[in-house]
């Protein structure tokens, strides 16, 4: 098994005719993901990498039975695209778009919650269950099927981590990039629970970064609910206060959101925090008695 995406994922690409949408559609198909359709208003009838394009998500769902969608539309229209997917009954939406206004995310949250739609992102690289489905812009070739669940606020840091896991013989059940924005969809707590419930995941890697208090909340959640071992790395230990470190959400404001606080919270929860990413494989091997 795995979480969120697998062989039963039937994927729709919103913004499939755009540069990024069409490029990554091909990559996802190459990986073996079942891409069943695309949406681009006014482009009905076109084919992108052999995938039929529809005007609306509702039409696409009706024709293809899609249950998951990935959003590549420009940031200004991303929130609307997520709403459209939720309205059409899509169960899981992955928003790749970078630069979505925070209040747009705030506005759509009640509706998608009401519809029971799960959202990942925005401003995220997507997710992958190795050998089953790649839904995102992650480089499929570095992943390997296995028993480590990974969640991360950063894209390239995820790749770096996965590369080291794979090189050390540690495969992954599912890797989820939750995105770098202050208000995002599924977050650490929900994913920790999913990995804890997944019989094929034996240990969890959580890659955090400065800004907000999601790591502190995750630490408390681990104490209260999580049975499987969790290891972590927190990026931004040297970041200056008041500056956005690339990600909109990665900012130390008024002295809170520092790496030191997050590391302390995890250590208090019995989570081992690596001083550098390359220490993570060893920590995992010890925990899994490999």
């Amino acid at each position, binding site marked *: 098994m795995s979480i969120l995406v697998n062989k039963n994922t039937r994927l729709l690409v919103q913004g499939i005719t755009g540069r990024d949408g069409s490029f990554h559609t091909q990559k996802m198909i190459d990986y073996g993901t079942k891409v069943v359709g695309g949406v681009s208003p006014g482009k009905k009838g076109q084919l992108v990498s052999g995938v039929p394009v529809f005007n609306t998500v509702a039409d696409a769902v009706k024709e293809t039975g899609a249950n998951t969608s990935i959003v590549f539309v420009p940031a200004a229209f991303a929130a609307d695209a997520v709403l459209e997917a939720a309205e059409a009954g899509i169960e899981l939406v992955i928003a790749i778009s970078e630069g979505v206004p925070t*209040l747009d995310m705030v*506005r759509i949250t009640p509706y998608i919650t009401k519809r029971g739609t799960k959202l990942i992102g925005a401003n995220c690289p997507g997710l992958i269950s190795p050998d089953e489905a790649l839904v995102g812009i992650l480089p499929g070739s570095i992943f390997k099927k296995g028993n480590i669940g990974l969640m991360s606020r*950063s*894209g390239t840091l995820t*790749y770096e981590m996965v590369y080291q896991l794979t090189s050390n013989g540690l495969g992954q059940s599912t890797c989820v990039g939750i995105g770098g924005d202050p208000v995002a969809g599924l977050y650490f707590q929900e994913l920790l629970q999913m990995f804890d419930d997944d019989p094929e995941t034996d240990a969890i890697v959580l890659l955090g970064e400065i800004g907000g208090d999601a790591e502190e909340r995750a630490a408390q959640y681990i104490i209260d609910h999580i049975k499987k071992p969790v290891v972590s790395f927190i990026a931004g230990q*040297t970041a200056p206060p008041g*500056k956005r470190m*690339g990600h909109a959400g990665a900012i130390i404001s008024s002295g809170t959101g520092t790496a030191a606080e997050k590391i302390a919270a995890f250590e208090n929860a019995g989570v081992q925090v690596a001083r*550098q990413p390359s220490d993570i494989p060893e920590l995992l091997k010890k925990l899994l008695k490999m």
Partner: protein
Amino acid sequence: MKIHEYQAKEILSQYGIPVTMEVLCYTVDEVQTATEQLGFPVVIKAQVLTGGRGKAGGVKLVRNADEATTAAEKILGMDIKGYTVEKVLVAQGVSFVSEIYAGITIDRNTKSAVFMVSREGGVEIEEVAKDNPEAILKFSVDPDLGIAPFFARKIAFALFDDLKLVNQAVDLFQKLYKVFIDNDASLVEINPLVITSDGKLLALDGKMTFDDNALFRQPVIHALNEPSEDEIKEIDAKEKGLTYIRLDGSIGCMVNGAGLAMATMDMIKLYGGEPANFLDIGGSSNPQKVIDAMNLILSDKGVKVVMINIFGGITRCDDVAKGLMAALEQIKIKVPIVIRLSGTNAKEGLEILKSANLPTVETMSEAAQKAISLSEDFLR
């Protein structure tokens, strides 16, 4: 994006929130004229885009013309945390009976706007949050309802018993929320919101920051932007597709991806060095981007060594290496470079760089250690 107090109060005023009578001044003469207009006492306040101006001596209450001149001379031109004070706000002195805090920001956890009020206004709210967190009352706002009258009353009754004050507060809170929503703010704050001696609510100070992601649809707010020297560099970089933040160390960094860029800085620090910058070049092997990034790093004279840390994902390392080669042929670089390439086609990429005699390493930790030792050699 931050704006000045005087700009924040102009916005509050446009939405019908009562603010102090005040005049913006650039010179001592203008301050004198302003005091003649407003009468004494007045408060002279430095207008800088950073906090802590009170502690730095940038706020003075003055009672006569001599005091006003002395204070204006002292504050204008003053340095507050690296920002030079170029303008001051001269505000009418107000007698008040109590100070309140009112602010709206985004709560990442509830994924909603949160209205915060406190009877302990007039001091830094962060200090209240630390020392006496229960003194701050928080109300999550349902975006579908906004600040409905009942909701505003609930907040107001948490602060006041006097119905006259409650009614004023209900009106003010609804307007404040409208400021927040209409302008895509990430923070609006009135601290202190005072109850004047004659029982009126009045905003003595105002602070606002805005969501950078939403500036594309907020042209009026965007026009208020006054970037500092460092920020101008950051904006120029952004236009070239680079995210750059200058720091004080000696090791220049060029990395693809924000998280990896932060982790790279952390590695440098872990091994005893100091990063000179944060720089995310995004996911591209375009030589022009590497050239732009290199020029940006080297524009900082403190840089003694450049560390390039690239993880090839969808972008292949051999393409990145070719991009680097093309870039390095075009610009003369006097400081040593350390290149770490890993990920897709790393072997091929490293071969290309090795054949050009460029020092390469395979891991991030190695790169950090090598960069530090090179920077030390350079200093010797």
